């Protein structure tokens, strides 16, 4: 039992960090742009296919291809922002929700026609590492370290760079930031791009060890919503911690009951947090 607990805890922590990166993208966009990006899952899935083709067609190592996928995510974010989000940014929340939902439909519809909904996987492995009762594929360990590096990079960017300060200023009070000469339009576009870049990075990392279809992003988007609520809306670092909590839950719940109960417990927690502490476990009390 102890061995199973330890193994499950390690598995949960490793995958939770990757979930955290995906959720950081969602929460950053909400925190700065105040848009709930319903195309988040589609972008995660698109990144999986981006990595697949860079590996299988261009012959790149997945970890060399990964920055290109992330860069593609950034550019896609700019495009989506310019076409669909910018125009509804001051409209009621429903308009931006519908706009990103439409983008989601366009991406899924087009990509389904191209890739079909058949499963794909990247034939790549680094072997496994064992320590006591725990054996973990090295790809998952690399993904978790990469997730920590991405989170640390985002933290330093937001808290140690001038552009990061501008982003935080716009997130705090857009009107005041504009009065201080911060070009809010550019900051919003950049923030949306960084959010989709994080989604793309998470998708590419997941594709190194799990098979995927163009519809795979949906489940990661749902997890991202739970994590965002756990970590506090608009709080990227809270999202990383929320990802860890969700990962640990996914690891430990099956130890005590059937794995089928895991999503039920996750969403019960989601509702409970919304009712009891809507600012999230790691957000400030409102």
């Amino acid at each position: 039992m102890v061995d199973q607990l330890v193994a499950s805890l390690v598995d949960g922590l490793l995958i939770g960090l990757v979930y955290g990166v995906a959720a950081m993208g969602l929460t950053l966009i909400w925190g700065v742009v105040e848009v709930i990006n319903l195309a988040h899952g589609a972008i995660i899935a698109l990144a999986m296919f981006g990595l697949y083709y860079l590996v299988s067609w261009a012959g790149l190592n997945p970890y060399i291809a990964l920055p290109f996928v992330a860069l593609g995510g950034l550019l896609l974010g700019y495009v989506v922002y310019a076409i669909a989000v910018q125009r509804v940014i001051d409209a009621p929340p429903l308009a931006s929700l519908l706009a990103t939902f439409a983008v989601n439909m366009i991406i899924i519809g087009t990509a389904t026609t191209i890739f079909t909904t058949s499963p794909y996987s990247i034939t790549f492995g680094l072997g496994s590492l064992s320590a006591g009762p725990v054996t973990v594929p090295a790809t998952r360990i690399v993904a978790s370290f990469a997730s920590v590096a991405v989170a640390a990079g985002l933290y330093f960017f937001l808290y140690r760079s001038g552009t990061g300060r501008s982003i935080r200023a716009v997130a705090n009070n857009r009107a005041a930031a504009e009065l201080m000469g911060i070009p809010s339009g550019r900051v919003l576009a950049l923030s949306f791009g960084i959010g989709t870049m994080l989604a793309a990075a998470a998708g590419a990392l997941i594709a190194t060890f799990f098979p995927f279809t163009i519809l795979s992003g949906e489940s990661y988007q749902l997890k991202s919503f739970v994590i965002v609520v756990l970590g506090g809306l608009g709080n990227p670092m809270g999202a990383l911690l929320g990802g860890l909590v969700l990962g640990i839950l996914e690891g430990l719940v099956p130890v005590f009951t059937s794995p089928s109960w895991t999503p039920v417990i996750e969403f019960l927690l989601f509702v409970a947090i919304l009712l009891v502490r809507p600012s999230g476990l790691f957000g400030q009390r409102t």
Partner: protein
Amino acid sequence: MSRIGHVSRVVGVLLGAGVLAACQGGASTAPSTAAASQPVASGSAGGGGGTKSVVIGFTVAQTGATNVESVRQQHGLELWMEDVNNAGGIRLSDGTSVMLSAKSYDDESNTDRVQSLYTTLINEDKADFLISPYSSGLADAAAVIAEQNGKIMITAGAASDSTYMKGFTQVYQTYTPASHYLTGAADLLKSLDTSAQKIAIVHENDKFSTDVANALTSYATSEGYDIVVDEGYDTGTTDFAAFINKISAASPDAIMGGGHFADGSTFAKQLFEKGVNAKMIALLVAPPEPTFADIGDGAQGVVGPSQWEPTVKFSEAAAQSANLTWIGPSVDEFVSSYMAKYNEEPSYHSAGGYAAGLILQAGIQAADSIDTAKVRQALDGLDLMTFFGRTKFDITAESHGLQVAHDMVYIQWQGSSGSLEKQVVWPEAAQTAQPKYPLR
């Protein structure tokens, strides 16, 4: 003005998405017509009776979770149609040649689409006979439509016993039923290791896999095994870590279960990556597929039940000695013509598609007619052998159409990574190699 502009743009985007979705939907519901390889012109063929054209209707998972298996089944079925048409059609005693043409749609591996597509096949495309979609859940849904419309449906890739226990009278099964899929793996384990006691069962939560797991649980328990893990996973699962940790904690002698190709391959790969030390792994559907070896070392030693393998020994001579009717190509002829056409080794799904066609052909020949009632009567009395094995149906009211004569074999991937070979290891009479046990 600005807000109206914004709203109109949002509506525009939504409409664009709708148009795209409609285009996609339209594309996927457009029928695919596999033309007969020879032109069909009524009254033009030899013999006194001329030519009759028969439409074979079916759906294929061109996309979705069961795409690999379903497309192979389609390949087998289309090869059968081509062979029949190239031979001048199915000959009736009055000289009539029955030529075949196909109508098919993409069911996207989606049960919800199947009933409307089969209704379309029957009512709009005027299909005379039906072949089932791949997988038990989809075939079960399609069987209802076939039965309601009085159309004969030969099922391929539809092993669940329960489909044939609903009182249907027009549905006939090609495969060995699901209840027999993994019971042979338990027999194999017993033959190899009488000290083995513990079996972990982890299976997909769909109709077919659950039927298989329930039958295995019941059989293994009656044989004295302890079922130490019995868990189901959702269709589309990609992360098996939680299940594997449970399995490891239970230290089973054997792991059995799985579901279909995509999840089964991933499960086997992750079992290897997590270093699970079971002596035997036996999974459904995925291992017999030639591309299962693409997962590399994870495939090594994995056992899988197979409805058919290219090494089986069914032959016309064997049929004669068993006093059975023989129909269709030999095993070697099927394998070589399949490989020539598709440039891939046929799997049991491919062979099952062809065999489903042969069963229908045998029914038409035995009835000497394409009349549904006469063909149904002929199918009820069928007892024949093809390259796929023996075929005979239960014709009792309780389980009409259930396959009662076909037997399975069990394969195991043997050799080293990069040069893995599929060997038949059970039953002993069909062995091409000794089983590797323990597997790692």
